[in-house]
């Protein structure tokens, strides 16, 4: 035989899975929420998303070029981070601040720590917190959609969560309106239906394990009920569904085993409710996820799998 044969160690077939395909699935899962945000908040939401995606990809590309490493933008993780960060911003957010947020997310949280798989916290969440602390006013400049005869009109006002925190009962939309997203809030967090559709898609495609979202949302429901608040309202307002489905499930910052994921989800839920009910911020999801991200390595150590037939020495 005159041609050379390839000799590699086993296995010699692999599943069709790839990092790019997983990230593509996440992008597809976010499309319903994107469509919903355009319908509810208008075309500026599309502009914000586009700016964030482009900035994230450019920042990642430039960083890899400057540090002379292999380029990783083809794995689409920067696109996912860009979309998620945009989903965490109000529609009135200034463009240059969004670009700054992308810089924080990609360069500081992700690339400086080693790139994909090595970040210690969710890049989009951390960037959102940085923006909230730096530009509190612009991050709270909400527009509330109102259904009028001509379609949807936007007026500035407070989100339902802020109203709840203040204690006013007026102006809080009905359950169905909350479910469909006809309320004030960040671009991606309002339409719960679209987010759930995306979540179901991700579970079917085996991209995420349903344990974290279910544990997160279940804990928020039960704990806020135990504290006397309206649990369904707590679930449908704020960024719980967005955080539970898309941000808490980020691979590198959540535990790998099922028990670990359960603890993580419950922890996120507890912290969210504590911050909402007893803290001064009306929204606790981002801080809860960040704190649990930091705890993840310890959760992993505590929840190692038990090898089949293993004998403890």
């Amino acid at each position, binding site marked *: 035989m005159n041609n050379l044969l390839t*000799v590699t160690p086993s296995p010699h*077939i692999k599943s069709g899975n*790839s990092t790019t395909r997983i990230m593509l699935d996440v992008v597809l899962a976010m499309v319903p929420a994107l469509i919903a945000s355009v319908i509810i908040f208008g075309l500026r939401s599309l502009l914000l998303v586009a700016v964030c995606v482009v900035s994230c990809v450019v920042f990642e590309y430039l960083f890899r070029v400057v540090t002379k490493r292999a380029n990783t933008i083809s794995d689409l993780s920067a696109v996912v981070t860009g979309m998620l960060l945009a989903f965490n911003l109000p529609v009135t957010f200034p463009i240059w601040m969004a670009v700054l947020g992308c810089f924080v997310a990609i360069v500081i949280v992700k690339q400086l720590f080693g790139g994909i798989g090595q970040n210690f916290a969710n890049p989009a969440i951390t960037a959102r917190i940085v923006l909230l602390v730096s530009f509190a006013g612009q991050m709270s400049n909400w527009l509330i959609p109102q259904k009028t005869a001509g379609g949807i009109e936007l007026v500035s006002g407070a989100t339902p969560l802020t109203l709840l925190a203040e204690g006013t009962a007026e102006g809080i939309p009905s359950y169905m309106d909350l479910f469909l997203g006809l309320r004030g809030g960040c671009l991606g967090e309002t339409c719960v239906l679209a987010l759930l559709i995306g979540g179901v898609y991700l579970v079917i495609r085996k991209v995420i394990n349903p344990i974290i979202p279910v544990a997160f949302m279940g804990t928020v429901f039960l704990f806020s009920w135990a504290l006397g608040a309206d649990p369904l309202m707590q679930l449908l307002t704020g960024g719980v569904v967005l955080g539970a489905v898309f941000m808490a499930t980020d691979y590198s910052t959540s*535990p*790998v*085993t099922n028990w670990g994921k359960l603890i993580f989800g419950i922890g996120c839920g507890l912290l969210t409710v504590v911050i909402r009910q007893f803290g001064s911020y009306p929204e606790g999801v981002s801080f809860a996820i960040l704190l649990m991200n930091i705890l993840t390595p310890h959760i992993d150590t505590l929840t*190692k799998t038990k090898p089949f037939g293993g004998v403890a020495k």
Partner: protein
Amino acid sequence: MRQNGTSAAKRVTTMGLLFALAIVLSFFESAIMTLFPMLPPGVKLGLSNVVTMYCLFLVGKGSAFTLVVLKSLFAMLRGFISGAMSFAGGAVSLLVMLFLMVLTRHKARYLALSIAGAVAHNAGQIVMARVILKNRYVYYYFPILLLSGLVVGSVTGMVLNVLMPYLSRLPTGSREAAKSIKMEGNNVSKLFRKRLSGVAVPHRKNTKDCATVMMPIPDRVVIPMVQHMGAPCEPLVKVGDIVKVGQKIGDSEQYVSAPIHASVSGKVTGLVEIITPAGAKTTAVEIEADKTQEPDASICPPQINSREDFLKAVRASGLVGLGGAGFPTHVKLNPKNLSEVDTLVINGAECEPYITSDYRTMMEDTEDVLSGVRLVLKWLGIKQACIGIEDNKPDAIAKFAKAVEKDSNIQVVTLKSKYPQGAEKVIIYETTGRVVKEGMLPSDVGAIVMNITSCAFLAKYMKTGMPLISKRITVDGGAVAEPKNLVAPIGTPFNHIIDFCGGYKTEPKKLLMGGPMMGIAVYDDSYPLLKNNNAILAFDQKQVENIFDTPCIRCGKCVAACPFDLMPVAIERSYKNNDVDGLKALKVNLCMECGCCSYVCPAKRNLVLTNRMAKALLRKNSK
């Protein structure tokens, strides 16, 4: 598309049918309830719950939950509150029934499950109503709904009892679920026992229906002196000797070894050096065939009068584990605690893609397999035998089930088609439920595993006395012109075998000895056929994946796929940090290198290789 027991298309249509049925039933019962306006609101017949219960018992937990979600989404069309109530009732009911099934170890009766489900359904709805209406007084409604739940649950339970024998025969349910349900006591046992993970590899059993053909004798054979686990043999012939078929040409004084015999008659033309698949160097006897195939004079059926005679005969036959591991069978059949062994597990799983040689043995040599099983049972004094066959071979299962009808101590067990069902520890667990712990042998849990082809060979040897000199293999792969199953003499070079299969139709890029998951890539196609080969696969360019690995994204799919619940993601990290204590704690020594982790990794990392290097690191540090 996978060709597992239930295809994706079948599952989707099943869910669609069940969903439609559940909706129709709920409309039907709301129409009926209008005939009884005196009954309190919320009291329902629960007919659509029968569909959910059918799903839970006979299709699967995931499908049952999907049904609950679908029903809630449909109810949401009537308003958010309707949807929330439907979800709360359905989810709580499902969880309670699942909990009961696990608690009673799946011996709960349909009636009890049905009543518990109905009461839980109502309880869930009351709680949701309390939350939405913010009215504590709904709790006072509970006694009425409890009563209605008891009545309705009993009715649906009785309906289920009557219908179950017919429902379990529906094609929508999984075959295995149907088999595990007994009519009295409805024992859904094995359905929920902890399942070992694995991966659903594509089956690609293209040569399934290719009847075995005998290959003509090649011009020369090269027979290595080590084709088994254990000590290599010493050659007993020299250059120039004339040998006959079945003549012993290699043997060893060591216990863990097996003799090697000539597969053709002719003249020994050389004692060459060859590299074994494991990478070691050994001698090989090269024989030029005279094509007469004259059998050795000493060949005759062995006389067996005792267990010692039996084990001596097994050794003399040269039999090693024909499933691929190549462990000398006479050693395996003689453990120190033989008196405690009560089960012989026959491995007919054949979980690797492409390979169908064991399947052909099952279809063509059925009686030989059973004779071999009965011989082992008799001479070793083992009580019972379990033949494990994957459910992608239904004809083989049916054939064997019929053939063992009269044997009270042999039964056929259907295994789910999942890789690596054929691994020793996995098949013992899946057929008998016993766990072979770290450092133990199968005989320590009272089981011995034998490959189905090894049993067939044993029977043939006892009849004829001809030792192991030829092997049935599958030849397949994108580069082979005519894939088929054939029997070739041991030592036949690969290129000769592939020529018999029509030669290469495109340029081969990878030549595998064995299956694609655990097979070994060969560097040259003049390599000879060994005793423990089951397949030769020639992959073309399209099938060879030159994929470079990307960084680990810590998705944890490797952890979910590992049948032994190891954590390759953590092993890789510890290996990179040279953390020997960490590797010991992660039990990397238990890894059987099945390849499930590398198969599922989206970053295409070679985790099996890392595990092997980690094991080498541990060995180096334990000295």
